[in-house]
């Protein structure tokens, strides 16, 4: 299970990556810690969503929808837990579950190693993540939340830009085949 293997999808062979033991847990923990620290130390970076980037990255890399959605669920619920009593458990969890599942599903079908593909996918997943959040807030929590604003677009762009080097950095945690 720790080895890299290939997923046969039609005529395309897509490589499924494995990571060093504890890499996923460590990176997740680090991302959540940094995310919790941003509002305290660097308020301008509060639009960064490192747990989301981690979810996207591992989803695209692992290419297993079940693993991806469970990882997204775990990261999301942890983020909910760290967000204080005003954020109910499940708000980020639902959004990141959807993102984790879709990232894994897309990763199993497409080659997502190219930086441009990663940029586009990250931006798209960020918007999707926000859309699920707004939907959850509106439907379940009855909280008025705008569907779209410029801040969202900028945040999507910044997260996507940051995602490209971050993903390259995380690639180093892969075990060589």
């Amino acid at each position: 299970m720790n080895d890299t293997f290939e997923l046969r999808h039609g005529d395309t062979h897509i490589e499924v990556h494995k990571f060093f033991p504890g890499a996923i847990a460590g990176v997740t923990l680090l991302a959540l810690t940094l995310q919790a620290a941003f509002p305290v130390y660097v308020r301008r970076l509060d639009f960064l969503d490192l747990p989301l980037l981690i979810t996207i990255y591992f989803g695209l890399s692992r290419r297993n929808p079940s693993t991806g959605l469970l990882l997204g669920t775990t990261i999301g619920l942890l983020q909910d837990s760290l967000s204080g009593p005003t954020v109910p458990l499940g708000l980020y969890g639902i959004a990141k579950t959807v993102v984790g599942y879709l990232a894994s599903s897309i990763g199993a079908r497409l080659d997502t190693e190219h930086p441009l593909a990663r940029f586009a996918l990250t931006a798209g997943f960020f918007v999707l993540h926000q859309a699920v959040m707004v939907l959850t807030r509106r439907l379940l929590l009855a909280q008025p939340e705008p569907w779209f604003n410029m801040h969202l677009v900028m945040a999507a762009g910044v997260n996507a830009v940051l995602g490209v080097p971050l993903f390259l950095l995380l690639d180093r945690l892969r075990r060589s085949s």
Partner: protein
Amino acid sequence: MVAIPSRHRSLALLAGVLLAQILMLAVQIKRDSRGRLIRVWAVSTVTPFERAGAWGVGNVRGVWHHYFALRNTSRENEALRTENDALKLAMSQLQSKAAEADRLGALLQFKASNEKVAMVGARVIGASAGTASRTIEIDRGERDGIHRNQAVITPDGAVGKVIEVYRDSAQVLLLTDKDSGIGAMLVGSRIQGPVGGTGEPMLTMKYVATEETVNVGEKIVTSGMDKIFPRDVPVGTVLEVKAGNPFKQIRLTPAAKLDRLEEVFVLLTQEPLEFQKEAEAQSAPVPGTPAQGVPAETPATAPPAAVKP
């Protein structure tokens, strides 16, 4: 257990995880005054079924009650009809008793206000057998001190006079009898004239000169000149005045309700009575009512009231 195809397992897992989180959210969220979201959802989910169930049960029950459970309805209906008839009868009797109590109360009040005047209360026990005369029979007679030609009244006014006395009953000739007569006068102008009956419900006042002024609505009371009735007992109200030669034709409605007498007083003396002063208050001519005849410059020339025996 139903096996989920491997390609759908991740989808099923996704659905399960999402559902679990949504439920978790619902358990946490409290919406204003509507309680926790999970409770709102549960109630919203169950309510339509409950409503449908209640509607169905209500309809089934209605059909059962209205179509199948009618075995004893006919019997119950008959019993209810009988009960209804009995209740109607009882209610009618009670209403009658209440009316009687009112009448007796009025009589008692009248007697109390005239306690110095000797009078005997009597109950009407019969009436004339035919239309040729207007008489009533009362349950008081010779043993109660009743004599012929004594005045009979109610708290509303004059009724008639005693014409026959028996041991325990007496006959009273009503004012509406065509052979009846009573000395009377108009309250306002004090013009005198006998009032008698015509065999109809209305009375007539006779021997009022054409030139006298008589207004519709004017009150007429006894004059005391007939030696039967004391003065100022209400007799009636002028209903119609017609010019005549040499006397007016005056019709009036009786003050006492002569067509529905049940209790009366027989006056044993001619001492004046205390009646309500309503007649005097209304004795002034009614504005706007057409005066009949020309105002007289001379006093009334009508003959004194004469009472037929």
